[in-house]
Protein backbone atom coordinates (compact mmCIF):
# COMPACT_ATOMS: atom_id res chain seq x y z
CA UNK A 1 0.00 0.00 0.00
CA UNK A 2 1.52 3.34 -0.99
CA UNK A 3 1.76 6.12 1.59
CA UNK A 4 2.76 9.76 1.83
CA UNK A 5 5.71 11.30 3.71
CA UNK A 6 3.26 12.80 6.20
CA UNK A 7 1.65 9.43 6.89
CA UNK A 8 5.05 7.87 7.52
CA UNK A 9 5.93 10.75 9.90
CA UNK A 10 2.65 10.32 11.77
CA UNK A 11 3.32 6.61 12.27
CA UNK A 12 6.92 7.13 13.41
CA UNK A 13 5.87 9.90 15.80
CA UNK A 14 3.14 7.65 17.23
CA UNK A 15 5.74 4.96 17.92
CA UNK A 16 7.69 7.37 20.12
CA UNK A 17 4.78 7.42 22.58
CA UNK A 18 4.41 4.80 25.32
CA UNK A 19 1.29 3.44 26.90
CA UNK A 20 0.54 5.43 30.05
CA UNK A 21 2.43 8.54 28.90
CA UNK A 22 1.02 11.99 29.51
CA UNK A 23 1.71 13.78 26.25
CA UNK A 24 1.53 17.47 25.40
CA UNK A 25 0.02 17.40 21.91
CA UNK A 26 0.19 20.01 19.18
CA UNK A 27 -1.87 20.43 16.05
CA UNK A 28 -1.14 18.66 12.75
CA UNK A 29 1.17 15.65 12.70
CA UNK A 30 1.44 15.48 16.54
CA UNK A 31 -2.33 15.38 16.90
CA UNK A 32 -2.68 12.56 14.38
CA UNK A 33 0.27 10.72 15.94
CA UNK A 34 -1.11 10.89 19.49
CA UNK A 35 -4.56 9.76 18.38
CA UNK A 36 -3.03 6.92 16.33
CA UNK A 37 -0.94 5.77 19.32
CA UNK A 38 -4.03 5.84 21.54
CA UNK A 39 -5.93 3.63 19.10
CA UNK A 40 -3.06 1.16 18.68
CA UNK A 41 -0.31 0.45 21.21
CA UNK A 42 -1.05 3.14 23.84
CA UNK A 43 -4.73 3.01 24.89
CA UNK A 44 -3.87 4.64 28.21
CA UNK A 45 -2.15 7.63 26.63
CA UNK A 46 -3.27 10.85 28.33
CA UNK A 47 -3.49 13.71 25.83
CA UNK A 48 -2.94 17.19 27.25
CA UNK A 49 -3.17 20.37 25.19
CA UNK A 50 -1.53 23.76 25.75
CA UNK A 51 -4.98 25.28 26.19
CA UNK A 52 -5.28 23.41 29.50
CA UNK A 53 -7.46 20.46 28.50
CA UNK A 54 -6.41 17.33 30.39
CA UNK A 55 -7.04 13.84 28.97
CA UNK A 56 -8.91 15.13 25.93
CA UNK A 57 -10.95 12.73 23.87
CA UNK A 58 -11.70 14.65 20.66
CA UNK A 59 -14.60 13.37 18.53
CA UNK A 60 -13.23 15.13 15.45
CA UNK A 61 -9.94 16.63 14.32
CA UNK A 62 -9.28 20.00 16.00
CA UNK A 63 -7.91 22.87 13.88
CA UNK A 64 -6.39 24.66 16.87
CA UNK A 65 -5.12 23.56 20.27
CA UNK A 66 -8.10 25.26 21.93
CA UNK A 67 -10.99 23.84 19.86
CA UNK A 68 -14.22 23.00 21.72
CA UNK A 69 -13.85 19.28 20.86
CA UNK A 70 -10.80 19.17 23.14
CA UNK A 71 -12.81 20.54 26.06
CA UNK A 72 -15.93 18.38 25.67
CA UNK A 73 -15.41 15.07 27.44
CA UNK A 74 -11.97 15.95 28.86
CA UNK A 75 -11.13 14.70 32.36
CA UNK A 76 -10.32 18.24 33.50
CA UNK A 77 -9.67 21.71 32.14
CA UNK A 78 -7.06 23.99 33.66
CA UNK A 79 -6.58 27.71 33.14
CA UNK A 80 -3.54 28.76 31.12
CA UNK A 81 -1.77 29.45 34.41
CA UNK A 82 -2.86 26.13 35.92
CA UNK A 83 -1.82 23.97 32.97
CA UNK A 84 1.62 25.51 32.69
CA UNK A 85 2.18 25.65 36.44
CA UNK A 86 0.67 22.46 37.86
CA UNK A 87 1.38 20.22 34.88
CA UNK A 88 4.35 21.46 32.83
CA UNK A 89 6.52 23.26 35.37
CA UNK A 90 5.73 20.59 37.95
CA UNK A 91 7.15 17.91 35.65
CA UNK A 92 3.90 15.93 35.27
CA UNK A 93 4.26 15.49 31.50
CA UNK A 94 6.28 12.68 29.93
CA UNK A 95 6.39 13.59 26.27
CA UNK A 96 5.80 16.66 24.15
CA UNK A 97 5.77 17.40 20.44
CA UNK A 98 7.53 20.38 18.93
CA UNK A 99 8.18 21.72 15.47
CA UNK A 100 10.02 24.80 14.33
CA UNK A 101 11.55 26.64 11.43
CA UNK A 102 15.05 25.50 12.41
CA UNK A 103 16.48 22.61 14.44
CA UNK A 104 20.20 22.35 15.05
CA UNK A 105 22.80 19.68 15.80
CA UNK A 106 22.03 19.79 19.53
CA UNK A 107 18.26 19.77 19.11
CA UNK A 108 17.73 23.46 19.87
CA UNK A 109 14.68 24.84 18.12
CA UNK A 110 14.02 28.24 16.57
CA UNK A 111 10.44 29.38 16.11
CA UNK A 112 11.11 33.10 16.69
CA UNK A 113 13.02 34.80 13.86
CA UNK A 114 15.10 34.03 10.79
CA UNK A 115 17.95 36.52 10.74
CA UNK A 116 18.52 39.24 13.29
CA UNK A 117 16.04 39.56 16.17
CA UNK A 118 15.69 43.34 15.82
CA UNK A 119 15.53 43.35 12.03
CA UNK A 120 14.31 39.90 11.04
CA UNK A 121 14.19 38.47 7.53
CA UNK A 122 11.20 36.44 8.64
CA UNK A 123 9.23 36.98 11.81
CA UNK A 124 7.94 33.62 13.08
CA UNK A 125 5.16 33.15 15.70
CA UNK A 126 7.47 32.87 18.72
CA UNK A 127 7.57 30.43 21.60
CA UNK A 128 4.03 30.11 22.80
CA UNK A 129 4.44 27.19 25.18
CA UNK A 130 7.28 25.59 23.20
CA UNK A 131 10.07 26.81 25.51
CA UNK A 132 8.21 25.39 28.52
CA UNK A 133 7.60 22.07 26.77
CA UNK A 134 11.27 21.78 25.70
CA UNK A 135 12.41 22.72 29.21
CA UNK A 136 10.13 20.52 31.28
CA UNK A 137 8.87 17.35 29.59
CA UNK A 138 10.87 14.14 29.85
CA UNK A 139 11.10 13.44 26.11
CA UNK A 140 10.68 15.99 23.34
CA UNK A 141 9.71 14.64 19.93
CA UNK A 142 10.47 16.99 17.05
CA UNK A 143 8.71 16.72 13.69
CA UNK A 144 9.73 18.85 10.72
CA UNK A 145 10.47 18.59 7.02
CA UNK A 146 14.11 17.93 6.15
CA UNK A 147 15.75 20.78 4.25
CA UNK A 148 19.18 22.30 4.58
CA UNK A 149 17.91 25.73 5.68
CA UNK A 150 15.82 24.05 8.38
CA UNK A 151 18.81 22.08 9.74
CA UNK A 152 21.62 24.61 10.33
CA UNK A 153 24.54 23.68 12.57
CA UNK A 154 23.37 26.40 14.94
CA UNK A 155 19.90 27.97 14.98
CA UNK A 156 19.57 31.75 14.44
CA UNK A 157 17.70 32.05 17.75
CA UNK A 158 17.17 29.51 20.53
CA UNK A 159 13.45 29.66 21.27
CA UNK A 160 13.30 26.23 22.91
CA UNK A 161 16.42 24.67 24.40
CA UNK A 162 17.51 21.20 23.34
CA UNK A 163 20.94 20.25 24.64
CA UNK A 164 22.04 23.89 24.19
CA UNK A 165 25.80 23.71 23.49
CA UNK A 166 26.09 19.93 23.76
CA UNK A 167 27.18 17.55 26.51
CA UNK A 168 26.02 18.58 29.96
CA UNK A 169 24.23 21.62 28.52
CA UNK A 170 20.89 20.91 30.15
CA UNK A 171 22.37 20.16 33.58
CA UNK A 172 24.39 23.37 33.43
CA UNK A 173 21.18 25.31 32.74
CA UNK A 174 19.16 23.51 35.42
CA UNK A 175 16.63 22.07 32.98
CA UNK A 176 14.59 19.25 34.44
CA UNK A 177 13.27 17.49 31.33
CA UNK A 178 15.34 14.94 29.42
CA UNK A 179 15.57 16.98 26.23
CA UNK A 180 15.05 15.95 22.61
CA UNK A 181 14.50 12.21 22.18
CA UNK A 182 13.69 11.98 18.48
CA UNK A 183 13.62 14.09 15.34
CA UNK A 184 11.26 12.76 12.69
CA UNK A 185 11.45 14.20 9.17
CA UNK A 186 10.30 13.27 5.69
CA UNK A 187 13.74 11.66 5.12
CA UNK A 188 14.83 9.98 8.32
CA UNK A 189 14.39 9.31 12.03
CA UNK A 190 17.12 10.74 14.23
CA UNK A 191 17.99 10.26 17.87
CA UNK A 192 20.70 11.77 20.07
CA UNK A 193 24.03 10.33 21.22
CA UNK A 194 26.21 12.39 23.53
CA UNK A 195 23.70 15.20 23.06
CA UNK A 196 24.27 15.33 19.30
CA UNK A 197 21.80 14.38 16.56
CA UNK A 198 22.44 10.98 14.97
CA UNK A 199 20.57 9.37 12.06
CA UNK A 200 19.01 6.10 13.20
CA UNK A 201 16.91 5.09 10.22
CA UNK A 202 16.48 6.37 6.69
CA UNK A 203 13.12 6.26 4.92
CA UNK A 204 12.61 3.94 1.92
CA UNK A 205 13.79 5.59 -1.31
CA UNK A 206 16.10 8.05 0.48
CA UNK A 207 19.93 7.71 0.44
CA UNK A 208 22.44 8.57 3.09
CA UNK A 209 23.75 11.29 0.73
CA UNK A 210 20.28 12.83 0.44
CA UNK A 211 20.08 13.16 4.22
CA UNK A 212 23.57 14.66 4.43
CA UNK A 213 22.78 17.08 1.59
CA UNK A 214 19.64 18.28 3.42
CA UNK A 215 21.54 18.84 6.69
CA UNK A 216 23.76 21.85 7.43
CA UNK A 217 26.58 20.01 9.20
CA UNK A 218 28.38 16.64 8.91
CA UNK A 219 25.63 14.63 10.50
CA UNK A 220 26.56 11.37 12.21
CA UNK A 221 24.96 8.06 11.29
CA UNK A 222 24.41 5.29 13.83
CA UNK A 223 26.51 2.13 13.27
CA UNK A 224 23.40 0.07 12.64
CA UNK A 225 21.39 2.62 10.63
CA UNK A 226 18.61 0.82 8.82
CA UNK A 227 15.67 1.50 6.54
CA UNK A 228 12.63 2.98 8.28
CA UNK A 229 9.84 0.42 8.57
CA UNK A 230 6.93 1.61 6.37
CA UNK A 231 3.44 2.07 7.84
CA UNK A 232 1.21 -1.00 8.01
CA UNK A 233 -2.13 -1.22 6.21
CA UNK A 234 -3.92 -1.05 9.55
CA UNK A 235 -2.12 2.15 10.50
CA UNK A 236 -2.86 3.75 7.14
CA UNK A 237 -6.52 2.74 7.32
CA UNK A 238 -6.85 4.30 10.80
CA UNK A 239 -5.20 7.54 9.72
CA UNK A 240 -7.20 7.89 6.47
CA UNK A 241 -10.60 6.61 7.50
CA UNK A 242 -10.87 7.63 11.14
CA UNK A 243 -8.35 10.28 12.17
CA UNK A 244 -8.27 12.57 9.14
CA UNK A 245 -11.08 11.48 6.80
CA UNK A 246 -11.20 14.90 5.13
CA UNK A 247 -7.46 14.85 4.47
CA UNK A 248 -6.82 18.14 6.28
CA UNK A 249 -3.25 17.26 7.20
CA UNK A 250 -2.40 14.44 4.78
Amino acid sequence: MSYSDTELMVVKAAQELRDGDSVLVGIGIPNLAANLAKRTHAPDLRMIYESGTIDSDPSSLPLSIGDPVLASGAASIESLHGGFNYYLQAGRIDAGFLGGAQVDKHGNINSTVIGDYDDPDVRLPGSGGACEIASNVERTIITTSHQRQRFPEEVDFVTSPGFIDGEGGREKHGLQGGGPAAVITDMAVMGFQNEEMVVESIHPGVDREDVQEATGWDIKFAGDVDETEPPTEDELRLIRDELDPDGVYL
Partner: protein
Amino acid sequence: MSKVTSMKQAISTAISDGDSVYLAGFTHLIPFAAGHEIIRQEYTDLEVVRATPDLIYDQMIAAGCVGKVTFSWAGNPGVGSLRAFRRAIEDGVPNPIELEEYTHFGLVMRLYAGAVGLPFVPLKTFSGSDLPAENDNIRSVQSPFGDEEVYAVPPLNPDVAVVRGQRADENGNVHLWGIPGEHKEAALASDTVILSVEEIVDESVIRSDPNRTLVTADDIDYIVEEPYGSHPSYAQGYYDRDNDAYLNWDEVSQTHESTQEWLDEWVYSVADRDEYIRKLSSDRLLDLQTGNAYSEPINMGEN
Protein backbone atom coordinates in the same frame (compact mmCIF):
# COMPACT_ATOMS: atom_id res chain seq x y z
CA MET B 1 -25.70 52.82 39.04
CA SER B 2 -26.03 49.84 36.74
CA LYS B 3 -22.85 48.54 35.21
CA VAL B 4 -24.77 47.15 32.25
CA THR B 5 -24.08 49.15 29.11
CA SER B 6 -23.32 48.87 25.39
CA MET B 7 -19.91 47.89 24.04
CA LYS B 8 -19.70 51.27 22.30
CA GLN B 9 -20.23 53.10 25.59
CA ALA B 10 -17.97 50.79 27.62
CA ILE B 11 -15.05 51.11 25.19
CA SER B 12 -15.33 54.88 24.78
CA THR B 13 -15.48 55.43 28.55
CA ALA B 14 -12.81 52.92 29.58
CA ILE B 15 -10.11 53.25 26.95
CA SER B 16 -7.93 56.23 25.99
CA ASP B 17 -5.32 56.47 23.23
CA GLY B 18 -2.00 55.09 24.42
CA ASP B 19 -3.52 52.76 27.02
CA SER B 20 -2.39 49.21 27.58
CA VAL B 21 -5.26 46.87 26.81
CA TYR B 22 -5.65 43.11 27.37
CA LEU B 23 -8.35 41.33 25.37
CA ALA B 24 -8.37 37.94 27.11
CA GLY B 25 -9.13 34.42 25.95
CA PHE B 26 -7.01 31.48 24.84
CA THR B 27 -8.74 30.41 21.59
CA HIS B 28 -12.04 30.34 23.53
CA LEU B 29 -14.24 33.39 24.25
CA ILE B 30 -11.98 35.90 22.52
CA PRO B 31 -13.67 39.35 22.67
CA PHE B 32 -13.84 40.01 18.91
CA ALA B 33 -16.78 42.40 19.28
CA ALA B 34 -14.74 44.59 21.64
CA GLY B 35 -11.81 44.58 19.23
CA HIS B 36 -14.04 45.69 16.37
CA GLU B 37 -15.47 48.49 18.52
CA ILE B 38 -11.92 49.66 19.31
CA ILE B 39 -11.22 49.74 15.55
CA ARG B 40 -14.44 51.66 14.84
CA GLN B 41 -13.57 54.27 17.46
CA GLU B 42 -10.19 54.71 15.72
CA TYR B 43 -7.95 54.41 18.75
CA THR B 44 -4.24 54.87 18.18
CA ASP B 45 -0.98 53.94 19.89
CA LEU B 46 -2.48 51.25 22.11
CA GLU B 47 -0.20 48.73 23.78
CA VAL B 48 -2.10 45.54 23.15
CA VAL B 49 -1.25 42.53 25.28
CA ARG B 50 -2.33 38.92 24.69
CA ALA B 51 -0.63 35.53 24.90
CA THR B 52 -1.94 34.82 21.39
CA PRO B 53 -2.59 38.01 19.38
CA ASP B 54 -4.82 35.92 17.08
CA LEU B 55 -6.89 37.47 14.27
CA ILE B 56 -8.30 40.16 16.54
CA TYR B 57 -4.95 41.92 17.09
CA ASP B 58 -4.04 41.31 13.45
CA GLN B 59 -7.16 43.30 12.56
CA MET B 60 -6.40 46.03 15.12
CA ILE B 61 -2.81 46.30 13.84
CA ALA B 62 -4.02 46.55 10.24
CA ALA B 63 -6.44 49.30 11.32
CA GLY B 64 -3.58 51.35 12.78
CA CYS B 65 -4.73 51.15 16.42
CA VAL B 66 -1.54 49.59 17.78
CA GLY B 67 1.85 50.99 18.81
CA LYS B 68 3.13 48.00 20.74
CA VAL B 69 2.34 44.29 21.04
CA THR B 70 3.24 42.30 24.13
CA PHE B 71 2.70 38.61 23.37
CA SER B 72 3.97 35.06 23.42
CA TRP B 73 2.68 33.40 20.24
CA ALA B 74 1.71 35.40 17.18
CA GLY B 75 0.23 33.05 14.61
CA ASN B 76 -3.08 32.09 13.04
CA PRO B 77 -3.76 28.89 15.05
CA GLY B 78 -3.61 25.79 12.86
CA VAL B 79 -3.29 27.96 9.73
CA GLY B 80 -0.02 29.93 9.63
CA SER B 81 1.21 33.52 9.99
CA LEU B 82 -0.53 36.65 11.17
CA ARG B 83 0.09 38.66 8.03
CA ALA B 84 -0.77 42.16 9.29
CA PHE B 85 1.42 41.58 12.37
CA ARG B 86 4.27 40.56 10.09
CA ARG B 87 3.76 43.50 7.73
CA ALA B 88 4.00 45.89 10.68
CA ILE B 89 7.21 44.29 11.94
CA GLU B 90 8.93 43.49 8.66
CA ASP B 91 7.79 46.53 6.60
CA GLY B 92 6.36 49.08 9.09
CA VAL B 93 2.87 48.91 7.46
CA PRO B 94 0.57 50.68 8.36
CA ASN B 95 2.93 51.81 11.14
CA PRO B 96 5.94 50.27 12.87
CA ILE B 97 5.15 48.50 16.14
CA GLU B 98 7.27 47.74 19.15
CA LEU B 99 7.37 44.17 20.44
CA GLU B 100 7.77 42.74 23.92
CA GLU B 101 8.00 38.98 23.78
CA TYR B 102 7.50 36.18 26.30
CA THR B 103 6.59 32.53 26.42
CA HIS B 104 3.02 31.61 27.38
CA PHE B 105 4.02 30.81 30.94
CA GLY B 106 6.19 33.90 31.21
CA LEU B 107 3.36 36.19 30.14
CA VAL B 108 0.67 34.52 32.25
CA MET B 109 2.97 34.68 35.29
CA ARG B 110 3.34 38.43 34.72
CA LEU B 111 -0.45 38.71 34.81
CA TYR B 112 -0.58 36.50 37.89
CA ALA B 113 1.95 38.73 39.69
CA GLY B 114 -0.14 41.73 38.67
CA ALA B 115 -3.33 40.05 39.90
CA VAL B 116 -1.92 39.34 43.37
CA GLY B 117 0.36 42.35 43.80
CA LEU B 118 3.71 40.58 44.00
CA PRO B 119 6.86 42.51 42.95
CA PHE B 120 8.02 39.52 40.87
CA VAL B 121 7.37 35.80 40.43
CA PRO B 122 9.98 33.11 39.78
CA LEU B 123 9.53 30.46 37.11
CA LYS B 124 11.44 27.55 35.63
CA THR B 125 11.44 28.85 32.06
CA PHE B 126 13.85 30.78 29.81
CA SER B 127 17.05 29.03 30.90
CA GLY B 128 18.97 28.06 27.76
CA SER B 129 16.72 30.20 25.58
CA ASP B 130 17.73 33.44 23.82
CA LEU B 131 14.59 35.28 24.97
CA PRO B 132 16.06 36.86 28.16
CA ALA B 133 18.73 38.60 26.04
CA GLU B 134 15.97 40.42 24.12
CA ASN B 135 13.70 41.35 27.02
CA ASP B 136 14.90 43.23 30.09
CA ASN B 137 11.75 42.16 31.99
CA ILE B 138 13.10 38.60 32.14
CA ARG B 139 15.87 38.43 34.75
CA SER B 140 17.53 35.68 36.72
CA VAL B 141 17.38 35.53 40.51
CA GLN B 142 19.00 33.27 43.04
CA SER B 143 16.79 31.38 45.45
CA PRO B 144 16.98 32.95 48.95
CA PHE B 145 16.91 29.40 50.29
CA GLY B 146 19.70 27.80 48.25
CA ASP B 147 21.94 28.07 45.20
CA GLU B 148 19.30 27.50 42.57
CA GLU B 149 19.02 30.20 39.90
CA VAL B 150 15.66 30.75 38.28
CA TYR B 151 14.20 33.43 36.06
CA ALA B 152 11.68 35.98 37.30
CA VAL B 153 9.20 38.35 35.69
CA PRO B 154 7.59 41.54 37.06
CA PRO B 155 3.85 42.18 37.48
CA LEU B 156 1.75 43.25 34.53
CA ASN B 157 -1.16 45.61 35.25
CA PRO B 158 -2.92 46.62 32.04
CA ASP B 159 -4.99 49.79 32.06
CA VAL B 160 -8.01 47.97 30.69
CA ALA B 161 -8.99 44.31 30.27
CA VAL B 162 -11.87 42.96 28.27
CA VAL B 163 -12.87 39.52 29.52
CA ARG B 164 -15.73 37.23 28.59
CA GLY B 165 -17.84 34.45 30.04
CA GLN B 166 -20.95 32.64 28.96
CA ARG B 167 -23.25 34.29 31.51
CA ALA B 168 -23.24 36.78 34.37
CA ASP B 169 -25.71 38.46 36.65
CA GLU B 170 -26.16 42.20 36.32
CA ASN B 171 -23.68 42.80 39.14
CA GLY B 172 -20.89 41.09 37.19
CA ASN B 173 -20.56 37.73 38.93
CA VAL B 174 -19.59 35.66 35.90
CA HIS B 175 -19.77 31.98 34.95
CA LEU B 176 -17.30 30.54 32.47
CA TRP B 177 -16.98 26.92 31.40
CA GLY B 178 -14.78 25.24 28.83
CA ILE B 179 -11.25 26.62 28.36
CA PRO B 180 -10.71 29.48 30.87
CA GLY B 181 -7.40 30.67 29.39
CA GLU B 182 -6.23 33.80 31.23
CA HIS B 183 -9.59 35.58 31.62
CA LYS B 184 -9.36 35.51 35.41
CA GLU B 185 -5.77 36.74 35.69
CA ALA B 186 -6.43 39.49 33.12
CA ALA B 187 -9.50 40.70 35.04
CA LEU B 188 -7.77 40.70 38.42
CA ALA B 189 -4.59 42.38 37.13
CA SER B 190 -6.20 45.28 35.22
CA ASP B 191 -7.29 48.68 36.52
CA THR B 192 -10.55 48.76 34.57
CA VAL B 193 -12.47 45.67 33.48
CA ILE B 194 -15.11 45.33 30.78
CA LEU B 195 -17.01 42.06 31.01
CA SER B 196 -18.87 40.84 27.95
CA VAL B 197 -21.19 37.81 28.17
CA GLU B 198 -23.44 35.80 25.91
CA GLU B 199 -26.35 36.42 28.26
CA ILE B 200 -27.22 38.19 31.48
CA VAL B 201 -29.04 35.87 33.86
CA ASP B 202 -30.69 36.15 37.24
CA GLU B 203 -28.38 36.26 40.23
CA SER B 204 -29.95 33.00 41.49
CA VAL B 205 -28.54 31.14 38.44
CA ILE B 206 -25.00 32.22 39.34
CA ARG B 207 -25.49 31.47 43.04
CA SER B 208 -26.84 27.98 42.26
CA ASP B 209 -23.33 26.97 41.14
CA PRO B 210 -20.74 29.21 42.82
CA ASN B 211 -17.80 26.94 41.88
CA ARG B 212 -18.33 27.94 38.26
CA THR B 213 -17.86 31.64 39.01
CA LEU B 214 -14.67 32.96 37.42
CA VAL B 215 -14.59 36.51 38.79
CA THR B 216 -16.94 38.31 41.15
CA ALA B 217 -18.78 41.62 40.83
CA ASP B 218 -16.20 43.70 42.73
CA ASP B 219 -13.67 43.40 39.93
CA ILE B 220 -16.03 44.26 37.08
CA ASP B 221 -16.63 47.86 35.97
CA TYR B 222 -18.78 47.46 32.85
CA ILE B 223 -21.04 44.62 31.72
CA VAL B 224 -22.08 44.13 28.11
CA GLU B 225 -24.58 41.50 27.00
CA GLU B 226 -23.49 40.51 23.55
CA PRO B 227 -24.63 37.26 21.92
CA TYR B 228 -22.03 35.91 19.48
CA GLY B 229 -19.59 38.46 20.90
CA SER B 230 -16.69 36.08 20.24
CA HIS B 231 -17.32 35.01 16.65
CA PRO B 232 -15.18 33.68 14.85
CA SER B 233 -13.83 32.42 18.19
CA TYR B 234 -16.41 30.45 20.14
CA ALA B 235 -18.42 30.11 23.33
CA GLN B 236 -18.54 26.55 24.63
CA GLY B 237 -22.12 25.27 24.49
CA TYR B 238 -23.36 28.36 22.59
CA TYR B 239 -21.61 28.23 19.21
CA ASP B 240 -18.59 26.54 17.66
CA ARG B 241 -15.34 28.04 16.50
CA ASP B 242 -15.72 29.23 12.91
CA ASN B 243 -12.65 27.47 11.57
CA ASP B 244 -13.49 28.55 8.01
CA ALA B 245 -13.15 32.19 9.07
CA TYR B 246 -9.66 31.46 10.44
CA LEU B 247 -8.70 29.71 7.18
CA ASN B 248 -10.25 32.54 5.15
CA TRP B 249 -8.31 35.22 7.06
CA ASP B 250 -5.14 33.84 5.49
CA GLU B 251 -6.55 34.90 2.09
CA VAL B 252 -8.20 38.12 3.27
CA SER B 253 -5.03 39.40 4.89
CA GLN B 254 -2.68 38.69 1.95
CA THR B 255 -2.18 42.43 1.33
CA HIS B 256 -2.75 45.57 3.37
CA GLU B 257 -5.32 46.68 0.77
CA SER B 258 -7.36 43.45 0.87
CA THR B 259 -7.30 43.63 4.66
CA GLN B 260 -8.64 47.21 4.55
CA GLU B 261 -11.45 46.11 2.25
CA TRP B 262 -12.44 43.44 4.76
CA LEU B 263 -12.31 45.95 7.63
CA ASP B 264 -14.48 48.35 5.62
CA GLU B 265 -17.09 45.71 5.02
CA TRP B 266 -17.13 43.89 8.37
CA VAL B 267 -16.09 46.53 10.90
CA TYR B 268 -16.37 50.16 9.75
CA SER B 269 -19.63 49.64 7.87
CA VAL B 270 -21.44 47.85 10.67
CA ALA B 271 -22.72 49.69 13.72
CA ASP B 272 -22.27 46.99 16.31
CA ARG B 273 -22.14 43.24 16.94
CA ASP B 274 -25.83 42.85 16.41
CA GLU B 275 -25.54 44.19 12.89
CA TYR B 276 -22.43 42.05 12.27
CA ILE B 277 -24.33 38.90 13.24
CA ARG B 278 -27.28 39.83 11.04
CA LYS B 279 -24.80 40.30 8.21
CA LEU B 280 -23.47 36.74 8.58
CA SER B 281 -25.57 34.31 6.55
CA SER B 282 -28.06 32.22 8.49
CA ASP B 283 -26.55 29.05 6.97
CA ARG B 284 -23.24 29.99 8.50
CA LEU B 285 -24.76 30.60 11.91
CA LEU B 286 -26.65 27.31 11.68
CA ASP B 287 -23.37 25.50 10.92
CA LEU B 288 -21.92 26.89 14.13
CA GLN B 289 -24.72 25.64 16.36
CA THR B 290 -23.57 22.99 18.80
CA GLY B 291 -25.55 19.97 19.86
CA ASN B 292 -26.46 19.76 23.52
CA ALA B 293 -24.27 17.93 26.03
CA TYR B 294 -25.39 18.93 29.54
CA SER B 295 -23.27 18.23 32.58
CA GLU B 296 -24.96 16.34 35.40
CA PRO B 297 -26.37 18.88 37.88
CA ILE B 298 -24.54 18.90 41.18
CA ASN B 299 -26.31 18.96 44.52
CA MET B 300 -25.27 21.84 46.79
CA GLY B 301 -27.54 20.53 49.52
CA GLU B 302 -30.32 22.59 51.06
CA ASN B 303 -28.96 24.23 54.18
